[in-house]
């Protein structure tokens, strides 16, 4: 016996999307064919999980090449900030262009175009974020943190912290510790 099937791709795709989003517990709205609006932003883990589970059905999330290269720049920069083994004497411009095989000028323009921010600014944000983590989760003093992150002096880190966040490192620490105290009182 032979069956002849007619497919309604629209309905099929919709059903698959529905079941996948429900599986991952994500709230969504289907905007049009091939376009979905999520009601909240995904963490990168959720995003990867979604990408993987779509892959089984031949559904690909469209990413553009520029964004991918920008992601590589970011990964390389983060590696420079967080990984203490990376040679600190190499300038970030040299490091990037050697690692990614493009001129620094090209990379830097592309980066600004896609992220609305500059590579230098990105580096500063990353370093300040790292110093926040260290302030909250270790016993290191600000001086030790400045040394660890290759700042020329503690004053330099302190000024950059204040310029980037609008508050001083010690006010930052005080606010977060107060938040934690309140959160702890609630759970008691």
């Amino acid at each position, binding site marked *: 016996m032979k069956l002849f099937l007619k497919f309604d791709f629209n309905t099929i795709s919709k059903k698959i999307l529905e079941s996948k989003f429900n599986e991952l517990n994500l709230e969504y709205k289907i905007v049009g064919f091939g376009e979905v609006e999520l009601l909240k932003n995904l963490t990168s883990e959720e995003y990867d999980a979604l990408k993987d589970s779509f892959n089984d059905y031949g559904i690909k999330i469209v990413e553009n090449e520029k964004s991918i290269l920008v992601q590589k720049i970011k990964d390389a920069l983060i590696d420079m900030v967080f990984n203490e083994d990376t040679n600190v004497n190499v300038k970030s411009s040299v490091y990037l262009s050697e690692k990614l095989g493009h001129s620094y000028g090209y990379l830097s323009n592309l980066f600004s175009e896609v992220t609305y921010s500059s590579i230098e600014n990105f580096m500063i944000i990353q370093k300040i974020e790292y110093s926040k983590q260290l302030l909250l989760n270790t016993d290191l003093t600000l001086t030790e943190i400045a040394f660890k992150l290759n700042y020329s002096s503690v004053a330099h880190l302190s000024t950059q912290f204040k310029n980037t966040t*609008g508050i001083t490192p010690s006010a930052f620490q005080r606010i977060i510790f107060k938040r934690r105290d309140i959160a702890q009182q609630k759970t008691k």
Partner: protein
Amino acid sequence: MQNEYIYLILADDDKDDRLFFTDAFSELKINTKVNTFNDGVELMNYLNKEDSLMPNVLFLDLNMPKKTGIECLIEIKANTKMSGIAIVIYSTSASEEDIEKTFVLGANIYIKKPDSFKKLKKVLSEVVSINWQYHTNSLNKDNFLLRL
């Protein structure tokens, strides 16, 4: 990028402030979608509705009738569905006490309303671009504090 625009909401009872706000964003190069509410009750009704799109950034005026910015802030922070929203306090007051209090309650950014349109644009573009950094680089939002 996961989405190419930033969705912003402002809750403010002052009509002029709402107007300046939407105008300022229409002139920025970052893609934004802006929605405004006249008071805290309207805002919370929207956020609590099941099929509402959650904003990336929410600007809260502190002094609003019916429900104040602080009351909204506390409600939002208690709701896990709204945990991804970056909260900006947008106020005429710049008392150290208000600032520290709202930060401790979970606000991410504190802006004193600027006195000129030019400054407003500069400040708002700074907020959106730094929030964009947090959003696209999955930085820890719990440590996100900014005072402008």
